[in-house]
């Protein structure tokens, strides 16, 4: 194993000890990792050359699905996860059937439109959705066990960490698989794709459903951690935040998405106190800076440093041209 893979793995290993070493960070990191899973969904689409300004839609749908189920007698964490993910994937399929007909501007904006529609529904139909106040999501049981707050939060942290690693691994495998590679060719040449006998729409749809499911899983985890869901889960600001983190992490990099989410949440936790009123403004400026001056994001910076170091190494590791985006 080369040094460049060693550091990220070490960082993940260190996260295992957070509840013991820095219990104050546990909640914050639970939320950050949950968001990282959602951001992987947005990142995935960037690999097909598409940006969605409305992926909070799936974040919100699964969170509300979880809240509805939590209000019944079926409020078990496992059920919430399954039902929420299924809800997000199913709505991803329905919305996807429509938006995969489009690329670029239309893809981005139609996603935004769908999320705004859902947000309006959440706000207007308050008999069902609780309107702007949202719905409470009481702490669910875990496989039938009702846990106290502290053990539940500890469990949620490790569950989120495990899901981040597991889903991150799965997403990387997907991208390296034949269907994942076809999915990425939507970015470069749809004509050739069609002349390989493959439908670009179907190919994009597969990735879209996966991206919706990832956002959905992130949504349930955040909702469960916070104990409440509100329309802001599906608002454009949330979508924008996901896009921001995806670009910050490194457009298209899955480990970058995790690094971006951790960096983002930690900075926000401390800086937001000073910049609460201008948070979007700070994000916007930072987004411009990343796009214009460091388009590879955190992952790109890391790879550049690793390359520089390994050049000094007497036995440089061979790397494929795609490595910067892995």
């Amino acid at each position: 194993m080369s040094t460049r893979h060693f550091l990220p793995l070490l960082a993940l290993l260190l996260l295992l000890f957070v509840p013991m070493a820095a219990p104050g960070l546990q909640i914050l990191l639970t939320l950050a990792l949950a968001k990282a899973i959602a951001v992987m969904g947005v990142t995935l689409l960037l690999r097909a050359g598409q940006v969605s300004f409305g992926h909070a839609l799936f974040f919100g749908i699964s969170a509300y699905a979880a809240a509805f189920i939590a209000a019944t007698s079926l409020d078990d964490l496992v059920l919430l996860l399954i039902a929420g993910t299924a809800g997000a994937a199913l709505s991803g399929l329905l919305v996807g059937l429509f938006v995969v007909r489009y690329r670029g501007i239309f893809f981005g904006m139609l996603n935004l439109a769908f999320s705004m529609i859902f947000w309006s529904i959440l706000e207007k139909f308050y008999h069902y959705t609780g309107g702007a106040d949202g719905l409470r999501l009481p702490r669910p049981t875990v496989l039938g066990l009702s846990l106290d707050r502290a053990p539940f939060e500890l469990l949620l942290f490790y569950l989120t960490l495990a899901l981040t690693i597991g889903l991150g691994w799965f997403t990387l495998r997907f991208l390296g698989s034949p269907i994942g590679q076809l999915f990425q060719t939507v970015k470069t040449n749809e004509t050739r794709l069609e002349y390989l006998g493959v439908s670009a729409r179907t190919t994009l749809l597969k990735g879209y459903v996966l991206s919706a499911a990832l956002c959905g899983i992130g949504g349930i985890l955040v909702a469960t951690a916070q104990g409440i869901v509100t329309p802001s889960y599906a608002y454009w600001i949330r979508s924008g935040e996901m896009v921001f983190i995806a670009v910050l992490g490194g457009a298209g990099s899955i480990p970058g998405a995790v690094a971006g989410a951790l960096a983002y949440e930690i900075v926000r936790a401390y800086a937001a106190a000073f910049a609460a009123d201008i948070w979007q403004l700070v994000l916007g400026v930072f987004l411009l800076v990343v796009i214009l001056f460091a388009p590879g994001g955190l992952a790109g910076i890391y790879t550049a440093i690793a390359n520089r170091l390994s050049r000094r190494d007497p036995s440089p590791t061979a790397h494929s041209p795609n490595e910067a985006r892995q």
Partner: protein
Amino acid sequence: MDYTLILLAIFDGLSYAALVFMVAVGLTLIFGVLQILNVAHGSLYAIGAYLTASIGGAIFAAGYAPILAFPLMLIAAALVGILLGGPIEYLLLRRIYHKPEVLQLLVTFAVFMILEDVQRLVWGNQPYFESSALQMLGNIQVFGVYYTVYQLILLPVVAALTLIGLRLFLRRTLTGRLITAVTEDREAAQAIGIDANRVYLLTFVVGAGLAGLGGALASPTTSVLPGIGAEMIVLSFAVVATAGLGRIEGAAIAALLIGLGRSAATYTYPELQVLVPYLIMLAVLLVRPEGLFGSPAARKI
């Protein structure tokens, strides 16, 4: 539904369509020339509205005549176009014309994020409402229905004048011809000595100014509060997408369609009011993916 309600719905739809058109036409003009979708367009609309409502409120409270509301709107639009539109194009967009579409979208999205907070910083979270312009023009009775002159006559007239004016400007004036030439073939236009950068700057300033004017015109009819920019960019995109990107006349028809559809819902199924514009857009795009008046881009292989 009786006859009065139908009339009211039509009038509502008409005045609403006029406002949305003002914003959408700027968005589509900018796209037509620069090939960039300005996600920050909704914020320019909101800032136009804020400027008019807050300055208007201040000067009328100081005793100035309410008639000043009208020149104020034009000033607000010019400020938005020149002070915001100018720098955005000159400092930012100019760097990214050759970049992939996704990056262009991200850049204007970043501007949108910035401007949304700028509004909050300058004007806070409380709503502004300043309707002197609306009240000054009074009401009019049409077929037994009372309606404000401002919404029923002034707004549609301004929208129609904007449409006709833009058409004449693009077809009859030298500057307009230059814009059209750059739109059709940038390289060829530059080859014959047209300064494409200036055309881009001018177009963006005009487009941004139209968004500002839309906001200024809207301000007497509604409370100006945080979030209207986000709603307006999605709504005006719906209009532009329904019409076909870059279609100016089409945007007028799509705005009418969406405005009337929305007001019809207001009087029948009010919960659906916010959804109708999007449902119309989705329905149109399902049948015609390139919009009502757009032509499918032919890919050469």
